[in-house]
C-alpha cells in the first residue's frame, strides 16, 4: 500500500482545500514556524480514525475545524480524504479487487464524525479494520510526533513493550 494523495479542507489552519500528491521515496514538508506542517500530520492521524483530542493537540474535538483567522471567519466543517494505492499486496478483505481506496472523515462543528470508504459511508470500526492489517495504525512506530522522538528511549519498560507489541 502506498500513500497517493491527501486532500485537506477546513481542517485546522487549512481553510481552503489543498491537495498533496505523494510519490515514492522521501517527501519533505517544509515551511516557517506556525505555517501548518504539523497540522498535516494531525490530518493524517485524524483521517485514520484518531479519537484522542490530546493527540491532535486540541482541548475539544471541534478544535480540528478551522476556527478563523484575523481576517477570515470560522468554517463549519472539516474534511480530510486519504487515497492509498495498491503496491504489490492486495488490500485486506472486501477491498481486495480495488487498486485504489479513498478514506474520508468529515465533521461539522458540535457534530459527530462521519467516515467514508470510497465515498460510501462506513463506521469508524471499518476504517480501523482497514488499517489494522497494514501496520499504519495511529499509535504505532510509523508516526512520530514533533518533540517526541526520544520517547521510546525515555519510556518506562512496561510502556516500551507496547511498541514491540505493535510490531507483532
Amino acid at each position, binding site marked *: 500500500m502506498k500513500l497517493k494523495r491527501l486532500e485537506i479542507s477546513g481542517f485546522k489552519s487549512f481553510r481552503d482545500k489543498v491537495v498533496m500528491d505523494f510519490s515514492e521515496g522521501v517527501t519533505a514538508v517544509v515551511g516557517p514556524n506556525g505555517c501548518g506542517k*504539523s497540522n498535516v500530520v494531525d490530518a493524517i492521524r485524524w483521517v485514520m480514525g484518531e479519537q484522542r483530542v490530546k493527540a491532535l493537540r486540541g482541548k475539544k474535538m471541534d478544535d480540528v475545524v478551522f476556527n478563523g483567522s484575523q481576517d477570515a471567519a470560522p468554517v463549519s466543517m472539516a474534511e480530510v480524504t486519504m487515497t492509498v494505492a495498491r503496491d504489490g499486496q492486495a488490500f485486506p478483505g472486501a477491498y481486495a479487487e480495488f487498486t485504489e481506496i479513498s478514506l474520508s472523515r468529515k465533521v461539522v462543528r458540535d457534530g459527530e464524525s462521519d467516515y467514508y470508504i470510497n465515498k460510501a459511508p462506513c463506521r469508524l470500526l471499518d476504517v480501523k479494520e482497514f488499517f489494522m492489517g497494514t501496520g499504519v495504525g495511529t499509535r504505532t512506530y510509523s508516526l512520530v510526533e514533533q518533540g517526541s522522538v526520544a520517547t521510546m528511549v525515555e519510556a518506562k519498560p512496561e*510502556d516500551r513493550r507496547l511498541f514491540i507489541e505493535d510490531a*507483532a
Partner: protein
Amino acid sequence: SRARFAETFAAVNACFKEVFAHVFPGGRGELLLTDENDLLETGVDIDIQIPGKRAQNVSLLSGGEKSLAAIALIFAILMYRPTPFLVLDEVDAALDDANTNLFNRLIKDVANKSQVIMITHNKSTMEVADSLFGVTMQKQGISSLVSVNLN
C-alpha cells in the same frame, strides 16, 4: 500470545543490534526483558553503550544521543515489520551536523521499503528528499501549498 511476543521481541532485538552498530560504529545496543518468565507482562529495557564510553543508564545520554538511539530503534522495528508509510515530524531537531548526515543516509535506506513523509527545517535533510511540499500562510492564518526551489 506469549509465543508471538517472544518471536517479535527476538527479531526486533536482532535488528536493533544490527542498526545500532551501524548508527554508532563500535557501540552496542540491545533490548532486554525485565521478566523473562512472564512474557505477557514483562517490560522491555534498553541497554546502550555509546562507542568509547561505558554502558550507562539511558537517562545520562545526551539529547542528540537519545534521539539517535530512538531513531535506531524505530528503524529496527521497521526492518522487521515495515509499514507502508512513515511520518516523521522534526525528529532531527537535536542532531549536530555529523549526525544529521548520518540520519540523511539512514532515511534513504528506509525509503527503499517504506514511503517517508518527513517534516524538517534542516537544509541538508531537504536535499535528500525525492520531492518537496512547501507550506505557507500567504493569507495570514490560512495554510496553503507552494512549490519550493531549494537554492
